[in-house]
């Protein structure tokens, strides 16, 4: 019984080798054919660069806010315009999903990887994998903490610390000549995320020298409306009638907080000053209704800059390590005038 089996195994050896060599020949032929077709395309399109489309793998955080949705939209549409083949993934706000997506881009050998890190830390191993595979990485919108800066090529995005300072300066300006104390309730973003850390630090930087301001409550609303509303409801009860200012790390949480303030029978924008970030459509609507006092812009429209940088990186040209997006501050008085030109 055993011998025929062994016979079969022995005879199988050469067959595999033959098969393999046949496949190799076939694949060589395929490569040749592909090269010829590619050459033909290049010739036909008379120098158009479409022959070798740049492949960009983009690992998005999720769709947690209107801001993020606008960001996704900007990346997708500018990729189409720039003729970049975009591989897009949505990590649903989980770092493990993002790491998985980046690994799959490395396996697919894309030309450039871009991603918005959901949190600052824990990226070192996967970035090393990308570096080992010689795939350049561009960070968008949020930074990472790594010991070795060469692990990423460039970081395109807002300066959250500066945004925080702007929010703080607006407050200092708004309360000019007013004697304190001014109690601030802070709605933080996702714990550990760069905007949450920097918008908090930016505010602290401005108000620490001014002892009228005091943060009396601070809690994470996870950048969502439901989170902002629930936290604000609790704040309004535990610090009844004390809160002067809500400092929300994004518009969605501010909108949630505004609902909670209204349900408590207070007037947001008047009884409680609402300072927010991002300047999304929802934020603008709240400002036009007089319920939000200021929204510090944080532009999600960084798709065009990303495509431009990706092309330069892929072509081996030098790019700046830090590219800051252009942004401004929108107090509610300017909201109505600026609203029609807003894209997100």
């Amino acid at each position: 019984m055993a011998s025929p089996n062994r016979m079969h195994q022995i005879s199988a050896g050469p067959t595999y080798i033959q098969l393999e060599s046949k496949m190799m020949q076939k694949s060589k032929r395929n490569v040749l054919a592909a090269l010829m077709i590619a050459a033909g395309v290049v010739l036909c399109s008379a120098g158009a660069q479409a022959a070798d489309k740049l492949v960009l793998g983009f690992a998005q955080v999720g769709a947690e806010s209107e801001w993020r949705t606008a960001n996704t939209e900007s990346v997708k549409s500018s990729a189409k315009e720039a003729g970049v083949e975009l591989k897009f993934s949505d990590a649903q706000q989980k770092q493990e999903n993002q790491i998985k997506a980046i690994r799959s881009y490395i396996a697919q050998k894309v030309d450039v990887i871009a991603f918005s890190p959901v949190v600052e830390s824990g990226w070192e191993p996967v970035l090393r994998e990308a570096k080992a595979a010689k795939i350049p990485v561009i960070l968008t919108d949020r930074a990472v903490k790594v010991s070795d800066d060469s692990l990423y090529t460039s970081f395109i995005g807002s300066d959250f610390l500066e945004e925080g300072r702007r929010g703080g300066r607006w407050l200092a300006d708004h309360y000019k000549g007013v004697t304190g104390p001014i109690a601030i309730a802070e709605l933080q973003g996702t714990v550990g995320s760069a905007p949450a850390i920097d918008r908090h630090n930016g505010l602290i930087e401005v108000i620490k020298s001014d002892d009228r301001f005091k943060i009396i409550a601070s809690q994470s609303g996870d950048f969502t409306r439901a989170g902002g509303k629930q936290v604000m409801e609790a704040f309004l009860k535990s610090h009844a009638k004390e809160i002067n200012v809500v400092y929300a790390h994004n518009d969605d949480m501010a909108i949630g907080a505004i609902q909670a303030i209204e349900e408590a029978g207070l007037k947001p924008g008047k009884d409680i000053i609402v300072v927010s970030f991002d300047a999304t459509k929802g934020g603008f609507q709240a400002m036009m209704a007089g319920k939000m006092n200021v929204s510090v812009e944080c532009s999600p429209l960084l798709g065009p800059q990303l495509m431009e940088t990706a092309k330069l990186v892929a072509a081996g040209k030098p790019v700046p390590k830090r590219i800051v997006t252009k942004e401004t501050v929108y107090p509610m008085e300017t909201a109505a005038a600026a609203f029609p030109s807003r894209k997100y």
Partner: protein
Amino acid sequence: MNQTSNTGGMRARGAALARHPLFLPLLALVALLLLNRAFNPHFFQIVNQDGHWFGSLIDILNRASPLALVALGMTPVIATRGVDVSVGAVVAISAATAAVLIGGQMHIVNGVETYASNVPMSVAILAALGVGLLCGLWNGTLVAWVGMQPIIATLILMVAGRGIAQLLTAGQIVTIYYQPYFYLGAGYLFGLPFAVYLVAAVLGLLWWLMKHTALGLFITAIGINPVASGFAGIKARTITLCVYAFCGLSAGLAGLLISSNVKSADGNNAGLLMELDAILAVTLGGTSLGGGHFSLIGTLIGALIIQTLTYTTYSIGVPPEANLVVKAIVVFVVCVTQSDVVKKLVIRERMTLEGGR
């Protein structure tokens, strides 16, 4: 003589009370509420404002409503020795369905904001509930007729459901602008949040079905031994299907409340991890995951404990980084004190104490 027998009787009554299955969950809830009171003197204060009651306790009731609905639907499922891990996803699907159907646009006509819904609100609500029921029937069919293990059968919808919700909303957060819809999750009836009445209605319906029909008996029989219950003439399959269908329906109702309360539907985050909170609420309430025994009131208390805990971390100023750890510790303590091993230990301790006297 008379006095001693009296105190003895009282002690016995006290011991019986302490042994009541709902004693520990209630104790945990009261302890949490008192902890809040210690940090915030106005905690128990409820004032009438604009014709409705307003205060921390009302907030907790209102916020706990969606979770209570989901957990009440989950209770009979767990009593049949099953589980439904898809409820969070069903919440997201139902919220997305309602939001997309109602949607509504804001038109600014001469500076006045006016709102219109895409389809009549009743149609949207029925559709969302229908979708929830459909999800429940799907789970029930997989469990009762296909014979899959409940956790696997419902895992399918848990994973796929969030995808369906995102497809419905096209990956966006759909904002609802149609005012009357907000009544469901944020409106008040006779001074109390409308959502509380919905929970009471569902609880009442379940209570009646379980106590005044044989359904409660059938469900526990299936949970104790599905095969034997079949031999005893119980239509185990039909009842199992109905139990899952009801669970889907109540998750659908919870989805309506959530989307109405925050005036938007978020396919990614609505009802995220709610299945775990619901299972936790059911277990905190003293229902065993082994099936065959359940307590509806216990589930309600469990849901209130979870919401109070969340509220506590916000109001006493637990740093955001430490929130989940604090929650885990409280849940751990409540669960451990409810375990049979600890209960036996306590009883033995008491017996040796009384014996030594």
